């Protein structure tokens, strides 16, 4: 497999406050790569750094073959599903998906609509194409967000907490969508999550972040980490054990 994303010695944080330091990892083409960690450990901040919304305090994020992130004059090199889906509330689902196609392709209007509808269709949303985001469920909004992220066939998709706020069944449906994108469309997926069933089901590789340690505390295939890691923090995460809340047994 070829490397598509490489992160080298990256430090992230706000102002003078360093959240995580010395982050180095690679993402290979076609894999589902999960960034794990507890709430507030800096997962989403790292994601914002990877997609170019927040510069790293130091280090380098490099996309192989698809240029640097977020260059205003070129189509985006990747798609992003935000935690809230971030659909435009005054536009229908179809219009949301058409937006990047209208901006970055020279297709005529009927072709744009056809491609956008096809994206919605593979995510099971064609019947809701003309609904506003407020008229569909949270799971549908997530899928519409994926359809929009997928609109330009980017080689990499970034998902920020895709299962947040969803029931287990909808969350499992979303996992199947992730697998469809990775297996059938060959899209590389970088996933920020702390949903254990989702991690174990879809992720090929993962890194685990820890705020107290200030960086990556484990890396590898999730199932292997869950079964073989000797690190108490990793075991605590995978076995859902309380660690330091109200002075409980620490990691």
């Amino acid at each position, binding site marked *: 497999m070829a490397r598509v994303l490489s992160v080298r010695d990256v430090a992230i944080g706000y102002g003078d406050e360093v959240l995580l330091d010395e982050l180095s990892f690679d993402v290979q083409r076609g894999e589902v790569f999960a960034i794990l960690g507890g709430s507030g450990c800096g997962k989403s901040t790292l994601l914002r750094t990877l997609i170019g919304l927040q510069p790293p305090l130091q280090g380098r994020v490099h996309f192989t073959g698809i240029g640097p992130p977020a260059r205003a004059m070129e*189509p985006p090199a990747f798609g992003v599903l935000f935690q809230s889906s971030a659909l435009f509330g*005054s536009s229908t689902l179809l219009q949301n998906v058409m937006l990047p196609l209208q901006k970055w392709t020279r297709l005529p209007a*009927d*072709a744009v609509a056809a*491609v956008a509808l096809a994206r919605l*269709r593979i995510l099971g949303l064609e019947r809701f194409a003309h609904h506003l985001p407020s008229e569909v469920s949270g799971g549908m909004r997530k899928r519409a967000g994926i359809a929009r992220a997928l609109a330009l066939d980017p080689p990499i998709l970034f998902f920020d907490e895709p299962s947040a706020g969803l029931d287990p069944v909808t969350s499992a449906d979303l996992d199947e969508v992730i697998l469809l994108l990775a297996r059938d469309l060959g899209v590389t997926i970088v996933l920020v999550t702390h949903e254990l069933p989702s991690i174990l089901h879809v992720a090929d590789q993962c890194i685990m972040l820890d705020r107290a340690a200030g960086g990556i505390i484990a890396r590898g295939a999730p199932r292997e980490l869950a079964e073989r890691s000797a690190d108490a923090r990793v075991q605590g995460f995978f076995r859902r054990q309380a660690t330091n809340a109200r002075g409980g047994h620490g990691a």
Partner: protein
Amino acid sequence: MTDKAFSLELAAGQDGVPHLRLSGSVTLAEGSLLWSELHRELQGEDRRGMVELDLSGVERLDGGAAALLHAIARQHGEQGGALRFLGASRDTARLLDLYACTDRSDCERPAPQQPGLLNDVGNFAHDAGQSTRAILAFTGDLVHGLVQAIRRPRSVHLSDLGRLVERAGADGMPIVALINFLVGAVLGLQGAMQLHRFGGDPFLANLVGLSVVREFGPLMTAILVAGRSGAGYAAELGTMTVNEEVDALRTLGQDPQRFLVFPRVLALLLVVPVLTLLADLAGVLGGLVVAVVYLEQPSIVYIQALQRALDFADIGTGLLKCVAFAAATGLVACQRGLSTRGGAAGVGNATTSAVVSVLFTLVVIDAIFTNVFSLLDW
């Protein structure tokens, strides 16, 4: 001209069926070229019926291009023809299958028809009814909240009052002073030009003073407060409503009226009279500048004329009006904010609606007050 990554050629077909051969890398990035070239090829006289599209030379196909191929095939089918895909590799075929429509209706989702005039009228009447009901419910809640607040004054959430007073009052002072100074100056200039022609220069102070203190000062101040604070309240409460913060307040046993509305209305009741007095002062100063510069009147003449022209009743009528303006601005803006529905667009609509409704209410209140004052000969 850049080389494209795919090629489309007409090849010899069997049994007289036209045969198009697509090869290379076929991606959405060159979707517009693919769309136009394939459409052009399908326009040929001998290609109105069945056409074969040979995909054996396709090295790479992405999802967008697969969707385009299906869309073109569908359009060709609608014109009485048929486009058959042949020779696709396993990956290409899998992608084409993924983007294929199992049901024709799934591939064509025309936007719902726009409602007609009758529908619009019905919707308008329905919305008006809903809006009236919401206003009545708000008024009922308000009265109930007011009774509770009088019985238990400490139940009103006043910890934000200082911040609200600062934002509506202190922060608004410069713009209120500037606008009213300019209004006074413009009024003075217009009046001075007319009065000068009839030798009425000494009456400029009467014109500016009475107009500003009784009418323009309170009204312009109220309009500025509506634009700044009214819009701000509607947007703030609207965002809180769509974020379910208002529902959270209710579940915590807090009355949104006492927690959110009363402090804002109270803040406006406190600051608008002060801003109005500032506006009055700025407005007559604007007139003074015109008198001195344009009419070359000594300032003492203007000031003495002003003292003769104005009495406390004039200032009092302006202050009475501004209190009503403040209450109306606060209540209407908060009502609009709390009745917000939907997301960001709903907040925008609520804010627009608040400003328009407040301005309309201000003018109505002003007309009522002016009529009452004239009947009472104040």
